[in-house]
């Protein structure tokens, strides 16, 4: 009997034992492999690319336009503390702070791909915090209102009249912002405030003078 034949015969005889051993070793390998913490969500490279990119920002003008046109895909999330939210917020906004992020009920507003979620706070800070966490977990359609409510007030509610030397587009934008402001109720309050100061002015003039006296004295 040749050596080759002998080894072949051995393999044929023991093939099932060899295969069973391989199977067992593979299963044992799973137990013995060093375990590591699996991170959910997108990979670190994509996270950094998204974080550096300014694509997440939406301007106050675009947001105002979408609200006025009653865009059904818009979902506004106010990330400020509840007290500030109760004082003022954008129409139909939902209050979700960073601490509520893992609240199952509220999280369903963020982890979905039907609406464009616009996060906002007083500036970008709180909104960016929520966006960062959402981005890490791979949530889709999350946007941040650029400049937050401060920017909203300085552009939509109280837009600056452009300089005479500015291009035509700046005046058109100003007109749009004025009109948008009226939609959000600025015109109504202004007419009231314009009427009231006239009557108030007469009343206020006297205390103002009084105030000036001690100021001058100092």
């Amino acid at each position, binding site marked *: 009997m040749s050596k080759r034949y002998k080894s072949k015969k051995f393999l044929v005889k023991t093939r*099932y034992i060899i295969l*069973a051993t391989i*199977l*067992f070793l*593979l*299963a*044992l*390998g*799973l*137990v013995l*492999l060093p375990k590591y913490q699996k991170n959910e969500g997108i990979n670190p490279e994509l996270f950094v690319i998204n974080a550096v990119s300014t694509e997440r920002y939406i301007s106050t003008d675009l947001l105002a336009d979408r609200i006025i046109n009653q865009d059904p895909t818009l979902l506004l999330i106010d990330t400020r503390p509840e007290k500030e939210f109760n004082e003022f917020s954008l129409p139909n906004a939902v209050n979700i702070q960073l601490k509520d992020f893992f609240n199952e009920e509220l999280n369903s507003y963020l982890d979905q791909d039907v609406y464009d979620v616009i996060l906002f706070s007083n500036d970008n800070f709180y909104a960016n915090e929520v966006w960062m966490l959402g981005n890490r977990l791979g949530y889709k359609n999350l946007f941040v209102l650029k400049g937050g409510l401060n920017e909203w007030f300085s552009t939509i509610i109280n837009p600056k009249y452009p300089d005479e030397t500015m291009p035509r587009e700046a005046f058109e934008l100003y007109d749009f912002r004025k009109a948008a402001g009226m939609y959000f109720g600025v015109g109504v309050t202004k007419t009231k405030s314009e009427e009231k100061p006239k009557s108030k002015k007469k009343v206020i003039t006297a205390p103002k003078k009084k105030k000036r006296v001690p100021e001058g004295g100092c």
Partner: protein
Amino acid sequence: MGPLIPNGLIPVEWNFVIAILIGIAFGYIMEATGFSSSRKLAGVFYGYDFAVLKVFFTSAVVAVIGLYYMDYLNFVDISQLYVQPTYLWAAVIGGMIMGVGFLAGGFCPGTSLCAVAIGKIDGMVFTVGLMIGIFIFSESFSVLEPFFESSNLGHITLVDSLGMSPYWIILIITSIALVAFAFSDWVRSKVKKVFY
């Protein structure tokens, strides 16, 4: 990365095309290995042929080991895989009925269709019986529904119900499979050989 279709690496429209191709390959291999013979399938119960036990148990163990290695290497996300819900008592009763049908007819649903494909009359009779069974079950579902729904445990696996590491469960199941193979070989050596 994977699963490929839920993560959009393969368009969802390919779902059925891939299913049909896998089905054809599955049917071909079952027929090629002789699983369309009712004698081979019934052999498990009579102790003269354990090919069915060995093949299905091996495929399950190989698949789970492969999947968990791929999960470890981040090729597949195990948590994204669909797990059938467990209807405990409905499954126990259904399993017993299927066991009786398996033993009496010599086929399971998949192999009976293989047998039909190669023109076996017993396979055709079995498939007709299968269809009648499905029809009766579907028509009486409104009566059976309370029992059917009563023991729904949700999408659980052994990892959830035992609270153990999946890797240890895989090692235990693999060991059980190897012991079962050795035991079936021992039984086969004791039982009178049947040639078919």
